[in-house]
């Protein structure tokens, strides 16, 4: 038997709302993204990202550490043309590793031109080779075009905005940790102000203004408002111990009121206490580059979202390692990053924060929290919603075993998950244990791959042969 739907009964009978939770309150669509034709797969499909085409939200692209099913030269992205209800793999990303697919990858659509951009580390390279890619047809068969190709770069994180007007140019920002920089100011944004042009040029913006112990941390996350305001957050290392992996970092926020178009991009925020570029939203947070929370490695996460209705309002999330506890913090600024609130949320043993703010100024906060002990330990993926940053409503999306399957590699779930908004809707993605068990997905879920929900068993393409549990990507859409 292949029971495709689990969880609460749907609120309406329309196909589009299958898997939705509860008639009142937010409408939730959660979909296991592994296609039916790949029901046999047991990959560790971790570290997912997602992009929704603002010009046509039915078009969605996503990624994970998913190899090409035929072990060919191109890694796949997940594509949906029906708003995330169904998913197909399309192998168009250069540099597939036959066993793990691409390396680090993030995706983002242009606001208007339908062009999909990607920042990747090539899977077929051992030298952390970053490519910035684009395609005008994300569902087509042609490989993505390589715009930038250089080595010793970590965690490329792509964001895109499009200038106002009918001929508005695509501005692409790729946050990355450029370890080729000898000065130690490794936090970098590769920026193109016309990325859809025939041969776009990218400029490297070094955003670190303070002295580091030789480098910054991996996450550098730009976030661009439609009015042109560009923010970025990064893990600005203050100290690091090679042997223990422990260090301290400031959580630094940058802003550029003109989208980085001036001669000194991303320098509009000055920290009043040291007069350096970038306000330290938090100082001397601790991290452990060799640390683990359950089977997931840690190292210091950051996330930032700017209010779609008001670019003065910004939320940030970051981790602070207290040894026994891995704390996740949420802060807000209402004055364009100059000053920061007290803690809005503090979550114990949680990571992979992702933030988005919709066109009604509602905030969504996605994270994965490790709860319980021993065999009862679970990864709990939650989405919190708030209209004011004070009162929060929590949706539990997944509550899955934390110790199965065993880790094949690091990262187990990913060094990041992802969330964004288009209009009023929130779209997200996370990776989790894929056991087909109703209790594991309290908000409901739809599986494309074959599964028996009575015996809680995954099934092969023959819909009969059992398949081992693995880590899968899950698509999320929440309409508040």
């Amino acid at each position, binding site marked *: 038997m292949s029971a495709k739907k689990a969880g609460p009964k749907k609120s309406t009978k329309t196909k589009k709302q299958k898997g939705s939770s509860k008639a009142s309150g937010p409408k939730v669509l959660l979909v296991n993204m592994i296609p039916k034709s790949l029901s046999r797969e047991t990959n560790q499909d971790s570290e997912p990202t997602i992009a929704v085409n603002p010009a046509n939200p039915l078009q969605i692209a996503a990624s994970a550490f998913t190899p090409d099913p035929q072990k060919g030269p191109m890694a796949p992205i997940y594509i949906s043309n029906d708003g995330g209800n169904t998913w197909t793999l399309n192998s168009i990303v250069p540099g597939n590793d036959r066993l793990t697919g691409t390396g680090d990858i993030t995706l983002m659509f242009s606001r208007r031109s339908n062009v999909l951009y990607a920042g990747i580390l090539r899977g077929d390279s051992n030298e952390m080779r970053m490519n910035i890619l684009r395609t005008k047809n994300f569902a087509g068969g042609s490989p993505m075009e390589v715009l930038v190709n250089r080595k010793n770069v970590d965690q490329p994180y792509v964001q895109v905005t499009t200038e106002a007007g009918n001929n508005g140019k695509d501005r692409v920002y790729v946050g990355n940790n450029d370890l080729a920089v000898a000065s130690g100011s490794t936090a970098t944004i590769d920026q193109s102000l016309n990325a859809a042009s025939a041969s776009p040029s990218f400029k490297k913006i070094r955003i670190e203004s303070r002295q580091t112990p030789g480098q910054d941390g991996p996450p550098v996350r730009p976030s661009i408002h439609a009015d042109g305001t560009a923010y970025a957050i990064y893990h600005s290392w203050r100290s*690091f111990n*090679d042997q223990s992996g422990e260090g301290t970092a400031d959580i630094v926020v940058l802003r550029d009121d003109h989208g980085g178009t001036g001669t000194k991009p991303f320098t509009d925020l000055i920290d009043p206490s040291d007069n350096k570029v970038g306000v330290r939203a938090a100082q001397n947070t601790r991290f452990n580059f060799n640390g683990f929370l359950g089977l997931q490695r840690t190292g210091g996460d950051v996330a930032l979202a700017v209010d779609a209705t008001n670019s003065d309002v910004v939320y940030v999330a970051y981790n602070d390692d207290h040894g026994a506890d891995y704390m996740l913090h949420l802060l807000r600024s209402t004055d364009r990053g100059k000053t920061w609130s007290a803690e809005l949320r503090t979550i114990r043993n949680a990571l992979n924060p992702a933030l988005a703010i919709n066109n009604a100024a509602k905030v969504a906060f996605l994270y994965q929290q490790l709860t319980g002990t021993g065999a009862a330990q679970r990864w709990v993926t939650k989405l919190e919603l708030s209209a004011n940053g004070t009162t929060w409503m929590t949706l539990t999306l997944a509550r899955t075993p934390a110790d199965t399957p065993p880790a094949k*590699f690091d990262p187990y779930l990913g060094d990041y998950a992802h969330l964004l908004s288009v209009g009023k809707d929130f779209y997200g993605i996370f990776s989790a244990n894929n056991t087909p068990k109703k209790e594991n997905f309290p908000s409901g879920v739809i599986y494309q791959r074959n599964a028996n929900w009575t015996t809680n068993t995954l099934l092969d393409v023959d819909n009969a042969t059992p398949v081992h549990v693995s880590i899968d990507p899950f698509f999320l859409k929440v309409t508040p």
Partner: protein
Amino acid sequence: MPTRKTAQIEKPTFIFKGTVKKLKSATMKEVPVDKNTAIVTVDQVIEAPADLANYDGQDLTVQLSGSHKVGETLILNTVSWLYGESIAVRSLSEEPIKASHSAVLAAGVDPAARRRQREQREHFDEADLVVSGKVISVRLPGDEQSLVKGAVAASGARHKPVSEHDPKWREAVVEVDDVHKGDHKKKQVVIRFPASNDVMWYNAPKFHPGQQGHFMLTRTKPDKPTKTKKVGQKAAAEVAGATPTDTYVALDPLDFQPYSEPGGIKTIIDAKSS
């Protein structure tokens, strides 16, 4: 830059015997249909990665490279395209069934095992050195030992940046029993391998003292990196900057096969020596 324009160098990755069921049609709505798009019934999977080895009897979509008729039974040499409710593949070539295909169509051969054998053969052919022997020690490479270790404040003085993708290089010293390919006169060979379990490195063999078996190795050339991409193996030259002269690397799971494991490299070596 990789491109699909060079179809002549593409190798088939999913080979099966199939019968054309319907032309100008597809099993998936995502497929753009033209005159060469066909629904094909898989009669027998011949060679495939494990995830696709169980498709006997199922219909899938094939973008044929030439014109065929409904009812024709063919050997289809295909590559990846789309995977959704069904599968769509692109055919590089189609062959009519001939008597010469009887061997590949013989029953009882696991398509995934056949694929693995082909990969091992290609891997053997591309290796610079193939030896059998025993790992007698594992050590930190000299250049890793010499790095400044310990706490570093914000001084900008660190020697080597770190990332979650750090390979954590180790060197295995192998006492050589026999050389099966390549030229190696010394009693020992040093193999550099990544100890990291990061996604970039976890597939590489992790050696420990006492391991015995066959080693398929790629030579690193520090001053003259090779850009050749090995089939199923990351370019060894990319680690050359950190390796001493005449060091070999093992980066692919196929690079090591224990004596206890039948077939694979042993079969290839036996065939070459007979």
